């Protein structure tokens, strides 16, 4: 079949008004159904005619999937809440500034106005071979084009690769993991709640999916407990352009310091593996240690244990090391004499 791009193929469109209806449709159409949030990931796939669902379930009319509500001492954020709404929410900014920072660095203002938190954490990999329609492992084939001798893999994985070397591109995902967020998932059988950390999966688990969502499942909300409210947060995203770009690597940390020591800390990074990576070994190693350059350096070195760079992404090793270091110690800013 000749390849032609940029014109969306025909499909059956459903625009349910309630979560129940949405879940019902997903159950009914199963594998044939495509869940659409803000459309940023969806329209790429559809307009390129690479993914061809027969049914699209557009969630934009489901009002009960939007909004930011208090829950316990924390928050529940509807999956359809836009990134702009999250950035502008005063409670998120005040208590969970990590998510505020991460959301504000996603893509561009226009994309944040349209893109949703549910979409941002559930989006597909951005590997340019996979997105270009190459029939790779992730697309159901039997090769990883990004891991061949001629492959250009500057933006690919240095950790946890298993056949596929794509990375998870989400900025909010590591922030949510650091905040110990939980994902609320519904399907026809009912509702279940999973830790954010467990929501994301790597190729070893399922090479064609980025999350645990299976046909029929719908991410309805993200809950942020009060465990890390008001903690010391660090988020940094390194990208090629200052706007409208995915991370080369990002880091999110939430920490509570006491008497100059690290009382408790959670650190997660993204852009280095097919899933956001929680650095549990680093957290364990630095807990109770003084918050200083030595601890930060040790954390950075530990973070890159086991990293395996490809031909063009060796820089991600020092980048990950330095960002993890900074997530503890902060940036050593310049003090230029004027």
């Amino acid at each position, binding site marked *: 079949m000749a390849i*032609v791009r940029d014109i969306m193929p025909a499909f059956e469109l459903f625009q349910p008004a309630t979560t129940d209806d949405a879940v019902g449709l997903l159950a009914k159409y199963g594998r044939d159904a495509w869940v659409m949030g803000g459309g940023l990931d969806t329209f790429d796939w559809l307009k390129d005619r690479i993914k061809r669902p027969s049914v699209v379930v557009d969630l934009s009319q489901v009002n009960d999937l939007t909004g930011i509500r208090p829950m316990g001492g924390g928050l529940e954020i509807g999956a359809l809440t836009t990134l702009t709404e999250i950035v502008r929410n005063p409670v998120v900014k005040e208590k969970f500034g990590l998510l505020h920072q991460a959301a504000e660095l996603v893509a561009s203002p226009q994309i944040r106005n349209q893109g949703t938190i549910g979409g941002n954490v559930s989006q597909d990999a951005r590997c340019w071979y996979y997105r270009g329609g190459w029939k790779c492992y992730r697309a159901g084939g039997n090769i990883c084009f990004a891991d061949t001798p001629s492959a*250009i893999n500057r933006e690919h994985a240095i950790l946890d690769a298993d056949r596929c070397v794509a990375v998870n591109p989400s900025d909010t995902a590591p922030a949510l993991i650091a905040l110990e967020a939980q994902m609320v998932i519904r399907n026809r059988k009912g509702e279940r709640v999973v830790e954010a950390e467990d929501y994301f999966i790597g190729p070893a688990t399922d090479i064609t999916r980025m999350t645990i969502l299976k046909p029929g499942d719908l991410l309805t909300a993200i809950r942020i407990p009060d465990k890390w409210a008001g903690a010391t947060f660090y988020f940094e995203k390194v990208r*090629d*352009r200052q*706007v409208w*770009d995915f991370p080369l690597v990002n880091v999110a940390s939430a920490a509570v310091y006491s008497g100059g020591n690290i009382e408790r800390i959670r650190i997660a990074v993204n852009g280095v593996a097919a899933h956001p990576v929680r650095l549990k070994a680093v957290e364990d190693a630095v807990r109770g240690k003084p918050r200083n350059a030595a601890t930060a350096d040790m954390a950075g070195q530990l973070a890159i244990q086991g990293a395996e760079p490809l031909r063009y992404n060796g*820089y991600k090793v020092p980048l990950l090391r*330095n960002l993890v*270091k900074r997530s503890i110690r902060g*940036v050593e800013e310049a003090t230029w004499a004027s």
Partner: protein
Amino acid sequence: MAAKIDNQLPKHPPYKLIGKNYTTPDLIAKVTGRAKYAEDYRADGMLFAKLLLSPVPHGHVRNIDASEALKMPGVKAILTVDDMPKPADAMTDLGQRIPANPLGERGLTNDPVYQGEPILAVCAVDELTAVEAIEKIKLDIERLPHAVDPLVSLRPGGPNARVEGNVWMRPTAAPGQPAPPPKVAEVKWTDADFAEYKDGKLPMGKATDPEWSYGDVEAGLKNAALVLDETFVTPNTSHQTLETRTAMAYWQNGKVYVHCSTQSTAQTAPAIARWLGLVDDKGQPDISKVVVISEYTGGGFGSKITSSIAAIIPCILSKKVGAPVMMRISREEEHFIGRARPSLHGRLKVGFTKEGRITAVDMFVVMDNGPYDPQGDANQSGRMLSLMYQPPAMRWRGITVLTNTPPRLSQSQPGGFQGIALMEPILAKASRKLGVDQVAIHRVNAPVGKAPIGPPGPNGKRLYVTSAYVQEALDRGIEQFQWEKRKAMPKKSGSKARGIGVATSCFVGGSIGFDGLCVIKPDGKVYIQSGIGNLGTASVSDCHRVTAEMLGVPWEKCEITWGSTAKNLPWSCPSGGSQTTHAHTRAAYAVALDAKDKLTQIAAKDLGGKPEDYEVANERVFHKGGGRGMTLAQAAKRAVELGGIYDGHELPKGINKMTVASAQALAGQGLVAVARDTMPRDGQTHSYVAGFAEVEVDLETGKYRILDFLAVADVGTIIHPRALGGQVLGRSMLGIGHAIGQKWVYDQHYGLPLAKRFHHNKPPTILDAPEKMEWAALDIPDPETPIGARGIGEPPVGAGCMAIVNALSDALGDEIFRRAPVTADVILASLEAGKPATEGLTAHI
């Protein structure tokens, strides 16, 4: 570095309109969205076309089975290369035939030479139907060996991008004759040639482009205090115009009407005629059969100088189906057919005295030409280098290698940019090695006055430029940028390093010999016809301010007509190579002189005395020293009554046939002023920019911020400050994009592009612009053109790019990068390794 005292520099007289800001006639439509671009037009019964693009980088279509597609309801026609005219010969103004390149593009092909090359077009009632039809077409394609990396192709046994070979051979022209057509041949270098490849040094095997040199290069290098031998690679960058090259066409009464995107309204008509094979009995394009409509163009940068050959696809389809056809070009299609700058791999050996003066340059370049017509960038890189840095001795060698990547075309400062980019890192390095200030080393090598340029001509003499005030631009920059103060600041603090950089840049700044046409009507207004393309530079109206200025007519009483060759436009220059401001301030000057001649003649006829007793000012022609006179409105009325030369019924010789036809159509409406610019010029017109930048690099991430940027332009008399500032900063930004991230990415094994859209090609965003950005212009008139104005579109590119790159090496030293763009990964990996860590010579990474 004593600055020249200002009053020693030439000045222009005070003007009322020239040098002043004004509201351009297209502004409101642009900012309100009312402006209609090609894609915004609709015509009754309009059909849509979509393209089937080659899936392979190099192949041969053995068979196209479109039977299933043609059976679909709503599918009207399919167009293949068999429907396309053969490449037509071109004719020069002197009637010399330039034979068509038999290996040139035809718009569609059965022998694709890059992935994404259009093979066929399907026309249907809507785009969805067309696309579904395309998916039903069965292509039988034979895959052929491909090469996307010029050096891979030059290796022993390396693949060829075309069946005929891998290198364009360019025969030289006999004196006074057009050059014979270039030919493709197979050229392979030896393993020994590639010995230094692994060290990141460009191999220098057999060079096939015509070599040139002047002076004693060997002696210059031998006697130098410092000799640097450096390799640098410039990026392939798509033009990335915001408006893709969409076109819509229909036929009426044997004429084709084409709505397209072009840089040059007047010159696109003959281009389309030639591509369509519409030629008269002398072999000249028959412009009476083509109407080009392009009131607004969303950017060209050299990729749409006379629109695009793709525009003939809807023309031919429209004729075939008997209905208007719209062919919208998507962003991905634009990546393939939208043109790009050819990258140059360059290796330069440069000698310096201990004061930093260049003693000799030995330059070698490998051009990644893409698969089609040989580009001029390689040779131009040497020419511009010879002007910008004035080496007393120089040798240039080059080779033009074909690759299976999208076709290349001139892009802002074509070749000039690459020459600057190859040389500037060497100048910056020499400044560090010799302990000479960066600005000082640029100043001591800068062209002054009627400086020589390029190789010697057939008479053994080198050409020279009209003027150059680069030292003055550098002096202005030192002051405005507070160079010395910044230089004294520390280089490192915390996790950050700082650096400052300067770069100088130059390019062609004007052509001559085009026409002006305007009518002073009995309502007292001046109706100015503009054949200049409206490509966003404002020259479509700016140039005509000269006519108003000279006739003493307020701008509000001037009406500009532009954007359609049906509207009686004069022959105008192609808006490329920064020609227009120069060419058309001259044409506007010439037409104003013609108007003045006619006005004073009419006044003398009616009021007595001789024409030279009269002058024109303040909307009147009147007796010098006061007294009798008449308004322009009265004179226009008299011109109609007098007829003949006065109202356009008799036209001067020497004007272009397009201008003749337009003037004939306007004849009788008032005083018709029409003239060709035949004014003398001594030298080649060039413009110059000095760029200054400061960067702060994050040593832990490799990311950097551009804290400040200043561009100082030596561009002659300022015509329109706001538009000039837009060009200086906008084109600096284009160059900065080359420094910070813009590039192509290819998988060499498959020969396929990975970066095809804005997001992956990474043109800079507004947040990537320098945090502070300023421009200045010297406003020194060029002595070889009446108003003194030169073009500016090109030289800011090299200055913008290389000021940033030189600031980076100031901050980080010489062991970080050997190619552009310089991205965070390049910096961080090299800092980590303590040496340049990114592959130096692999193309498209």
